[in-house]
C-alpha cells in the first residue's frame, strides 16, 4: 500500500467520495485543471469533469453562496477557500445561511456542505496566507469545525465531513501537508466527528491541541519523557461540537493541562477549553491551566513567524510549570 501525505489523503478522500456519490461536487478557485494551489484537487477534474470539479469566478462570496444553493438542492458541495486568510468574504453566507438553514426552516432545508481551507502559518507565505481563525467559527452554532493532524485522520475526517448532513468547516494545517507519509487505506472508512483522539497516553500532564501544533506537542511530549514527565496528548480534531468528556477524563487522571494552539490567545478556542476545565474539573486540577498560543498580534510576516507559533520549548516550559505548581 502506498504511503501518502496529508494533502494526498485529502485528494484520496475527495476522489473516493466523488466516485461513490454523484452528488459530491468540488468548487473553488483553481481547483480544476491546476488541481488547487496546494494540489488538493489534483487529477479530479480529469476524472469527474468540469462541472463536478468547478473553477469558479474569483469571488469567495460567490463560492460560499453557490455552495449553500447547491447543498439546499441536494448536492454535497465541497468548497475550497484558497487560504483561510481569504475566508472573510464567505463568512456572511456561512454564518447567516449555511449554519442556520436547518434551524431557521425547522429542518425543511439543509446545507450538507464542506468548506475546506488550508489553514495556519509556518510556510513562509505572503501576507494574509497564514491565518489561524478557527475560533471565529467555533462560536457559530450549527457548524462543525474540524481540523485533521495526520494523513489518516485527514482521510477519515474529510469523508465524515462530506457525509455529514450539516455544514462542516474543514481546516487543513498546511504546514504539515507534506510533513510525513503514512499508509492510508483507500477503503472509504470515515472517522467519527464527535470524538477527540488520544494520541499518546500519559499520567502527569495533559497536552491538548489540534492541527499543525500536534507536531510540536508530540515532540514536547518526547522531550518531557526524557525528563521523566509523562504527558498525555489529545488531538481535539473536532473543535465543535466538542467532546469535552475525553479531555475531562484525561485531566481527572493527570491533574494538569496545557492547551496548545496557533491562533491568538484572547478568546481563542483554548479559552473555551480552559473555562470548561474551570467549570467542570476544578477539583481535579493540581495546577493552573496553561495556554501556549499565538500572541494577540497579527501573525508576523515570515521572517518572524516562527517566533509567533508555539514552539516545542514553550510547550515543554508550560508543562514543567504545571509540574512545579504541585
Amino acid at each position: 500500500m502506498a504511503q501518502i501525505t496529508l494533502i494526498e489523503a485529502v485528494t484520496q478522500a475527495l476522489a473516493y467520495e466523488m466516485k461513490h456519490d454523484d452528488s459530491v461536487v468540488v468548487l473553488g478557485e483553481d481547483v480544476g485543471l491546476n488541481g488547487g494551489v496546494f494540489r488538493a484537487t489534483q487529477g479530479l477534474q480529469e476524472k469527474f469533469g468540469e462541472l463536478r470539479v468547478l473553477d469558479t469566478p474569483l469571488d469567495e462570496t460567490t463560492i460560499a453562496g453557490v455552495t449553500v444553493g447547491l447543498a439546499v438542492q441536494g448536492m454535497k458541495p465541497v468548497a475550497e477557500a484558497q487560504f483561510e486568510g481569504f475566508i472573510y468574504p464567505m463568512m456572511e453566507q456561512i454564518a447567516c445561511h449555511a449554519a442556520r438553514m436547518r434551524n431557521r426552516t425547522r429542518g425543511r432545508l439543509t446545507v450538507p456542505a464542506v468548506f475546506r481551507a488550508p489553514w495556519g502559518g509556518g510556510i513562509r507565505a505572503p501576507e494574509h496566507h497564514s491565518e489561524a481563525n478557527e475560533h471565529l467559527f467555533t462560536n457559530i452554532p450549527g457548524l462543525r469545525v474540524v481540523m485533521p493532524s495526520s494523513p489518516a485522520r485527514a482521510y477519515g475526517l474529510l469523508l465524515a465531513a462530506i457525509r455529514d448532513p450539516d455544514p462542516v468547516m474543514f481546516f487543513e494545517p498546511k504546514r504539515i501537508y507534506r510533513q510525513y507519509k503514512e499508509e492510508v487505506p483507500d477503503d472509504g472508512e470515515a472517522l467519527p466527528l464527535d470524538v477527540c483522539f488520544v494520541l499518546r497516553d500519559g499520567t502527569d500532564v495533559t497536552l491538548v491541541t489540534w492541527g499543525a501544533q500536534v507536531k510540536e506537542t508530540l515532540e514536547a511530549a518526547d522531550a518531557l519523557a526524557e525528563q521523566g514527565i509523562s504527558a498525555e496528548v489529545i488531538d481535539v480534531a473536532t473543535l465543535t461540537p466538542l467532546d469535552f468528556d475525553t479531555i475531562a477524563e484525561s485531566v481527572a487522571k493527570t491533574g494538569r493541562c496545557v492547551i496548545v494552539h496557533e491562533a491568538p490567545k484572547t478568546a481563542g478556542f483554548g479559552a473555551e477549553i480552559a473555562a470548561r476545565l474551570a467549570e467542570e474539573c476544578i477539583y481535579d486540577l493540581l495546577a493552573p491551566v496553561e495556554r501556549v498560543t499565538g500572541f494577540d498580534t497579527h501573525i508576523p510576516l515570515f521572517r518572524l513567524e516562527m517566533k509567533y507559533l508555539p514552539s516545542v520549548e514553550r510547550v515543554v516550559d508550560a508543562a514543567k510549570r504545571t509540574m512545579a505548581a504541585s
Partner: protein
Amino acid sequence: MTIAAKFEIEYLQYLDAEGKQVRDDLPEFAKDLDHMVELYKLMLSTRVFDAKSIALQRTGKLGTYASCLGHEAAHVGIGSAMKPEDVLAVSYREYGAQLYRGVRPREVYMYWGGDERGNDYQQEPARHDFAWSVPIATQCLHAAGSALAFKIRGEKRVAVCTIGDGGSSKGDFYGAINIAGAQNLPLVAVIVNNQWAISVPRKIQSGAPTLAQKGIAAGLFCIQVDGNDIIAVRKAMEDALERARSGKGGSVIEAVTYRLGDHTTADDARRYRGEAEVKEGWSKEPMKRLRNWLVAKKVWDDAREEAWKAECDEWMDNEVNAYLETKTQPVTAMFDYIFAEVPADLAKQRDYVLSLENKAH
C-alpha cells in the same frame, strides 16, 4: 472609431397608469381574460393580506413587518410565470409571488410573529423554495447555486431570485449574475426597483441609468419593465424563464415600481420623502390600471370587486385565527434543529433549559 461591443436596454410596458393598452401585441397569456382576472384577484388578495398584516402589527399581534404595498404586479407577475418545479429565492416582502406558489398567510404571520415555523412552508411548490432572506442579496447566490445544481443534473428547471434596487449594489448580486453568465446557468434575477432602500433613494445606489444594465456586464439578457404593469412583468418573466430552461442563459429583469408604504412597520418614510412623491407613486400604482383594463373588457366590475374583497377578508381572518391559535414551540425547539441530531454537548444545555421549564410549571 472601432466599437468593441454595443448594448441597449429595452423597456417594456403594455398598460399605462390608467390601464390604456399602449401596444397591440398582447402576449398569449394576456389574451386569456379569465387568467387575467385570476391574476388581478391574487393582486387584490395580496393587498388585503398586506393591510391585515399591518393591522396585526399595529395592534401588537405581529412583530416588525415588511409591507409589499405597491409591489403587487411585480410579485404576482414573477410568481405566476414560474413552473412548480422552478425554485424561488426571495428577500422578505415578495408575498404576491409566494402566495401564488403556496405560502400561506399564516406562515408569513408566524415568521414576522417570532416563530421559525413560518419558514417551514407546508404547501408545494413553495415547500422547495427558499425561505425569506433578510441579509441583503445573499439569496441571489442561493439561486445561482440552485441553477448550477439543475445544470449539473440536467434538469430543466430555473432558479429565480428577487432583489431590491438597494440589494443590486451588493457583491452577492453581482457574484450571482457573474457566475450565471460564466456558466450559462438557468438563473433569472429580478430587481424589483421600488426606488427606496429604507431611506436611501435609487440615485444613491448607482450611477447607472438603468439597474437592468448591470446584467450586461455579466453577459446576461437584460430588460427593464414597468413593474406596475403585470402584463409587462409576466411577459418578461416568461421569456426569461424560457431562455433559461432551454439552455440559452440567464436574465436580469428590472421591474420599476414604487414602495408606497414604509420600509417596514418600524420605519417612518415621512422622515425622508415628500408627500408629492408618494402621491405621484399612487398615481401609477398597479391595481388601478389592471382593474380599468379588465372593466373595459367587461370581465370585472365593482360588484365582483366587493365580493372578492369579502372573500379575501374571510380568508385572511381564517389565516389570522390559525396564526393566533398556534401554540408557542416548546423551549427545546431552539436546540432541536441546530444539527440533524443534537450533539451530546448541546444536549446538556437542552436538558438544563428543560429543567428550568419543568421547575417553572
